[in-house]
Structures are given as structure tokens and as C-alpha cells.
């Protein structure tokens, strides 16, 4: 049988620190009901809630020294 990528489950990568990585494109529905989208091949979703471009990661999760 030919490989059918559409049948494959979409992989999400989680890490203890840093964003959730998803295969793009994605649409994200925010708490207020608005929807934002990204058509990048991979999308980094902010999990630390510190991003100034929420829901996208902007590296604000990094340690500061």
C-alpha cells in the first residue's frame, strides 16, 4: 500500500521547558473565541504564557541571567 501521509497521526512534540511543537499549518482558537493561524511547516505554541506574540512562542520562556 502506498504511504498516505494523511492517514498518519499528527505528531506533537512536548518538552519540559519551551513551546509545544506542532506540524503546520495550524489554527488556534483563543479564549475570547478569536482564531489565529500560522502556515509555517512547524509551529511553536507558547506554553509559558509569557510570549508577547501569544499563542506563538517568542523565546520569552528562556531563563534570564
Amino acid at each position, binding site marked *: 500500500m502506498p504511504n498516505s501521509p494523511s492517514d498518519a497521526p499528527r505528531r506533537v512534540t512536548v518538552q519540559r521547558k519551551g*513551546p509545544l511543537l506542532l506540524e503546520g499549518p495550524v489554527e488556534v482558537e483563543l479564549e475570547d473565541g478569536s482564531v489565529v493561524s*500560522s502556515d509555517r511547516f512547524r509551529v*511553536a505554541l507558547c506554553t509559558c504564557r509569557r510570549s508577547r506574540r501569544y499563542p506563538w512562542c517568542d*523565546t520569552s520562556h*528562556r*531563563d534570564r541571567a
Partner: protein
Amino acid sequence: MEDLRDEPLLPAPRGPVSSAVQAHLRGTGPLPSEQDVDAAPVYGDDLQLALYLCYELHYRGFAGVAPGLEWDPELLRTRAALERRFLGALRADARRHDTVDDALAGILVEPVDGTGVSHFLRDKGELWHLREYAALRSLYHLKEADPHAWVLPRLRGRAKAAMAAVEFDEYGGGRADRVHARLFADLMTDLGLDTTYGRYLDAARAELLVVVNLMSLFGLHRSLRGALVGHFATVEITSSPGSRRLAEAMRRTGAGPAAEHFYDEHVEADAVHEQVVRHEVIGGLLEDEPYLAQDIAFGVDATVFTEDLLGDALLADWRAGRSGLREPLDQVAQDSTHTS
């Protein structure tokens, strides 16, 4: 028939070594002597411009220079001598970490009160600083991602797929108007700069040539593929926070929408690229070729070193109220001999 070629003009030489390389490119003189190559300060204008001339033949070439000189054995011998000095100096001068994780740890932490160029531009940058900065960086950004494309055939599997995916993003995901080099040209237009490829080479100080030569050096040698990957990771990791500061500088000075967009796009894109490069490209390469770990770390360390070299030189000039370019910008913009 009209000449449709639009290769950049050869820049003015900066000493005996670059002068001799240039003469060879024009077919009018011998290559530099070994003594001249050995005597030139390694991060200085003369040696770095000579190397830049050699490398540029692999990108767009120069007007009036035979394209075949790209593979001229005599010129390649000179290039190798220049590279030996450059690489030797980098290995001696860059801080060296033993492991990739150690090398990356330093750049994965954000300083609370940083003192780099992007901090300066965010807090104190005036339009003329931003124009100088963009003119300098245009030597790379107008060929953004090109030096890194050379590593693709030298990678396999996971590392190759991930590297190609990031490069695809750098090249606009198949859309010409989103190619990052094009977004940078749009930024330059907002800042009233000339977007002609190679236009600001004469204005670019030695430390900027060092930064761009480093990428070409790593990109052109398969033996330095680990260093290229380490270099690329460093660029992607440091870009996102730096781009945010530069976007703020563009907004504050009213540089224009395209100028803001270039850096806004890089805040978001490089937050992703960083993850992909660290986990997939470095991770994949280390799985395939674990013995490259030290090379990857060296690529990180050398990139940090050369960026510091540039940042320190630029800030020293700007803090003293001086131009950070070799030729002031307005004079450059009026000089019609370069744009004809």
C-alpha cells in the same frame, strides 16, 4: 545588444593582499605573495576582503570577472592560504566548549540587561544607526540562507529533512515575495537604502566581512559541516530576542512597515527555527555522526566570537558618535558610479 548582466562591481582593494587578488580577478596581475598573506592582520580589512572576493565568486561573482575563476586552481591555492590563517585564528581566539550543550547553554539564556548592538539600537538607536546597521547586514541578508544551503548534500535523514524545511522557510516557503532576502530588501527601501546586491561592500568594515566570511568558510567545506550546523543554530537561537529589540527600534524611529515586518517575522520564525535546528538538525547530525560534536561546538563558539568582534567595534564607534561604516552613508547613496 544590451548587456543584461548585473553582477556587482569589484570593491576597492584595502591593501596588498586584496589588491593582488583583485588584479588576478581582472586578469592584470599576480596573486599575493605568501609573505603578504602571512603579514596581513587576520581579522583586518585586507585579508578579509581578499577572502570575501574569493568567496563571492561562489555566489554572484563580479562584473568583468570570468565566472570560471570560481574554480581557478591558483586562486583556490591563495584562498586556502587565507583560510588556514582565518581558521587557525578562530580556533585560537574563540572561547572553546567541549560539548554542544555547554556551547549552547550560554546563548540560551537571556541577559537581564544586555549590552549588545540590538540593545543599543532598541534603547538609543536613531534612524542613522539603523540605516548603517542595515547597510552592513545587507552583505549577508541579501543572500540570507545561501551559505547554509551548501550543507544540505552533506547531511542525511532527519538532519537533512529538517535543515531543508528551515531553508524552505527562509526562502519564503515557495513565495518569492516572502523570501527573507526579499523582506530585507523591502526593509532597506523603507530606510532609503540601495537594494542592489553588493552595494555596500565598500562601506563594510572588516568585522562585518569576518562575520560573512565565517559562513562562507563553513558552508563551502564539507569538512566543516559540523561547524556550519553549529553556526546556523547560533544564528537561529540568538535571532528571536535580538529581532524583537530591532523591531522595537524600527517602530520607535518610524522606519516603516517593511522595516518592522522583517524583524517581526524573525521573532516568530526563528523561535520555531531554533527548536527545529536544535532538536532535529543537531540532534539528527549527532545521531549520524557523533564524532562531529566538537565541530558543532566550535561553530557555535566561533560565531559568538565573530559577532562579538563586530558588535564591540560598531558600538565603540556609535558610542563615540562616529559612523560605524568605512564610508558615510549619504556619500555612498550619492555616488552614482556604483549604481550605473
